[in-house]
């Protein structure tokens, strides 16, 4: 995370103090400690639990971003982050499993948003069908392992068939052993390749199109993939159609996850009935985190390279870019494919985590939600996009439900009287709509804009005064250099 730079030069006294490494470190540690304390202070039986959780969950879950943003010695930052991810998060997660679930969902959506950010933020191509690539990965793992009655299960091509068949030839037994150990990661790589390939296949015919035409074509493509997923149950059943693929396998759970969970639980004095369940969540958390880390690294490396500069150039001015030797189609394809590849890998993780996928998981609204994460966070800025994904996921999955839970609790306690037509649980999308509109009105460049866009916005009024039109010419006549010098 070396590229996560320190704070901008301080302007006020407060900032100046905060920008000192030692102070930054202290503040960061204090923040994390306080956040964790808050989490443990939560009293589930309190009437105000939902409201408290609503406030404390974002405080806690944003703490890695706070650590990454405050100025401190690099080593300290790394140590702190490792401790956060490897110790604090799991401990809190075991004591409060919904937070672990949130962390997993955030890592999934942050990964998706970063992938889309390559296409939209870096290369400036509007893609409204991004969820299609996500579906490719998810269906790949789903079809490989679900016992649903698809052509794969019927023809004994799947893991579950092999694994449950007692009479195995040595070859098949070897295959099962491989599958049970590494198939998940193997399929994840295939997912990366397959989604990347689909990205190229889609990109080839359509990348000549200008911005908004590209948007509708990608939107159509997203729908096409969803409709295929829904319809390819006949004449040959590939996807099990609208019924979806159920009981999709999870990656094998290493034994120490269970013992780790048990020991943490006993240290905290928690009664955990089924440690394997929490351990599995922890495993998904680990995979999601590692995947997200790799994706962030790849994003930074791509951005600070010939490729990233070429993408920015394309975003800024296609004609100038191609005239400077940037091969447009190749670089755009590369953007499409890299974005798609991320989505493919995350799709595999998603299918394994959900254990069930159906076409409804891959609707247009998903693509739009991911796009909203990119834009709300700050197009082009990796940290901003992660923040955007965090906030939107939190709002959708935690803040809004807890808000309605709080109102419901007050109503159950007789402190609030709401008619059923205005049941707060019914109006979460309304609040989400307001959140989107207000965030955009107050921070049009996103929460953490890319550096250049920040500057752009500050000077947008001067923008138009730059001499763009060609100068009125025929200089000849004025200075009279023809006919004599």
């Amino acid at each position, binding site marked *: 995370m070396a590229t996560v730079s320190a704070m901008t030069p301080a302007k006020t006294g407060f900032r100046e103090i905060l920008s000192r490494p030692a102070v930054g470190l202290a503040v960061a540690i204090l923040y994390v400690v306080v956040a964790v304390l808050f989490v443990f202070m939560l009293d589930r039986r309190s009437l105000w639990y939902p409201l408290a959780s609503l406030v404390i969950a974002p405080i806690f879950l944003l703490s890695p971003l706070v650590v990454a943003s405050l100025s401190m010695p690099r080593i300290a930052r790394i140590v702190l982050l490792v401790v956060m991810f490897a110790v604090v998060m799991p401990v809190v997660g075991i004591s409060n499993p919904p937070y672990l679930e949130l962390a997993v969902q955030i890592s999934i959506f942050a990964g998706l948003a970063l992938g889309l950010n390559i296409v939209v933020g870096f290369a400036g191509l509007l893609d409204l069908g991004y969820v299609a690539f996500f579906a490719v990965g998810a269906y790949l793992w789903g079809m490989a392992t679900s016992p649903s009655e698809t052509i794969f299960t019927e023809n004994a091509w799947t893991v579950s068939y092999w694994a449950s068949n007692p009479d195995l030839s040595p070859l098949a037994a070897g295959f099962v052993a491989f599958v049970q150990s590494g198939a998940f990661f193997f399929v994840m790589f295939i997912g990366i390749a397959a989604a990347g390939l689909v990205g190229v296949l889609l990109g080839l015919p359509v990348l000549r199109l200008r911005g908004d035409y590209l948007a*509708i074509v990608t939107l159509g493509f997203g729908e096409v993939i969803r409709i295929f997923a829904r319809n390819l149950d006949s004449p040959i059943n590939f996807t099990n159609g609208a019924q979806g693929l159920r009981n999709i396998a999870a990656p094998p759970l290493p034994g120490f996850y269970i013992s780790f969970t048990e020991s943490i639980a006993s240290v905290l004095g928690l009664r955990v009935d089924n440690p394997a369940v929490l351990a599995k969540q922890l495993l998904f958390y680990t995979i999601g985190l590692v995947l997200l880390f790799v994706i962030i690294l790849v994003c930074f490396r791509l951005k600070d390279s010939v490729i990233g500069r070429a993408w920015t150039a394309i975003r800024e001015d296609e004609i100038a870019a191609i005239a400077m030797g940037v091969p447009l189609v190749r670089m755009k394809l590369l953007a499409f494919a890299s974005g798609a590849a991320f989505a493919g890998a995350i799709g595999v993780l998603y299918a394994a985590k959900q254990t069930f996928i159906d076409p409804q998981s891959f609707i247009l609204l998903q693509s739009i939600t991911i796009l909203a994460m990119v834009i709300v966070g700050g*197009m082009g800025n990796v940290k901003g996009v992660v923040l955007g994904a965090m906030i939107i996921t939190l709002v959708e999955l935690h803040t809004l439900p807890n808000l309605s839970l709080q109102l419901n609790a007050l109503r159950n306690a007789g402190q609030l009287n709401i008619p059923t037509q205005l049941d707060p649980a019914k109006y979460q999308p*309304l609040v989400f709509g307001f959140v989107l509109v207000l965030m955009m009105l107050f921070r049009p460049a996103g929460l953490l804009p890319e550096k250049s866009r920040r500057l752009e916005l500050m000077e947008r009024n001067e923008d*138009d005064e730059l001499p763009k039109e060609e100068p009125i010419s025929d200089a000849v006549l004025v200075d009279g250099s023809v006919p004599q010098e």
Partner: protein
Amino acid sequence: MSSESLSPRQGGLLDPLIQSEAWQRFSHTGFYRFIVFPIGQIIVFIVAATVFLTALAYLVALLIPEPRPNIVLSDQISRQLPGMVISGISIGFVYAMVALGYTLVYGVLKFINFAHSEIFMFGSVIGFAFMNFLSSAGVLADWNPVVLVIATILISGIASGLLAVLIERVAYKPLRNAPRLVPLITAIGISFILQDVVRALASITINDFNLTYPTRNIAFFQNPIPVVIGTNEVRVRMTSIIIVIAAVIMLLALNYFVNGTKAGRGIRAISMDQATSGLMGIPVNLMISLTFFIGGAFGGAAGALFGLNVGNVTPYIGFIPGLKAFTAAVLGGIGNITGALLGGLLIGMIEAFLNGLLPYFPAIGIRYTDIITFGILIAVLIFRPSGLLGERVDEKV
């Protein structure tokens, strides 16, 4: 409907007529420019689309005469043809009117107003509310049906237009200098808000969100008109005819407004160059609001007509027609008014033909209608990257 796009070209059969002095004089009258020409254009579009799709269908029937046992495709085509054409035209006009909203806004602001589908929904709900009000007052049946339709269109059109202006003022105008994708996100936020606000209002006032037009019990709207073509009888629904007539009249009005009035000229100027138009004294903000009003009014009126036709609307009704109308706008060439009309009619007709004939191919079926429609769009865009009637954008270098 710019008069240039279909202007007679030299070398045609009609040359003697076109070059005659009388024609020249006639072609410059308002009657020609605002009545004869646009209606001719609409007829040409409809006839061309019908002929093309029918020919294609019969061609398929020639290649695959019996796609299913006991089904002779060509017989089925001739049996269904009138019904498919009529339903294609009526839904096509709805798409076209909604597509106009997308295209007008895109023309002046170069951004896709994703909340437009909810304006359409809003129009359909206002149409319901108005009729429901009359119905509960017990006077619905007393109104002359023609007056009722006109009043409904006006009320839902004006209400939706005002809503569109309000949305523009609140959610888009402050963002005019922001990156282009930002208004897209506010538009999505607005869509959520509109859906839920309408739902809340509907559930508070009538405790329901299936809003059924009370016109169901009025014979004028309900009784179909039997039309006998050859040996088979087709029942044409009155509401389909209403859609076509209303849409044509509104399109003529729009054509007159855009090409025949000062305000229309202002809008056209802004769509070409906003900054210069401002310098030339055109009130840019007013014109943009006006554009939103017109686009919203068309969307809202289309919503009311659609509601009248299908009978039942909900707060979530806008999404699918909105998406299709957006496709239509792009197919025709987004930013081009004639393109929206052509695109809407084409999408409507293609859909009607696919939905009518794909059932005879059990391996495909109407579940693939949307995929084929999008396939056609993509094919068109690959050969004409700016849509059917969109201008070629050879960027000046």
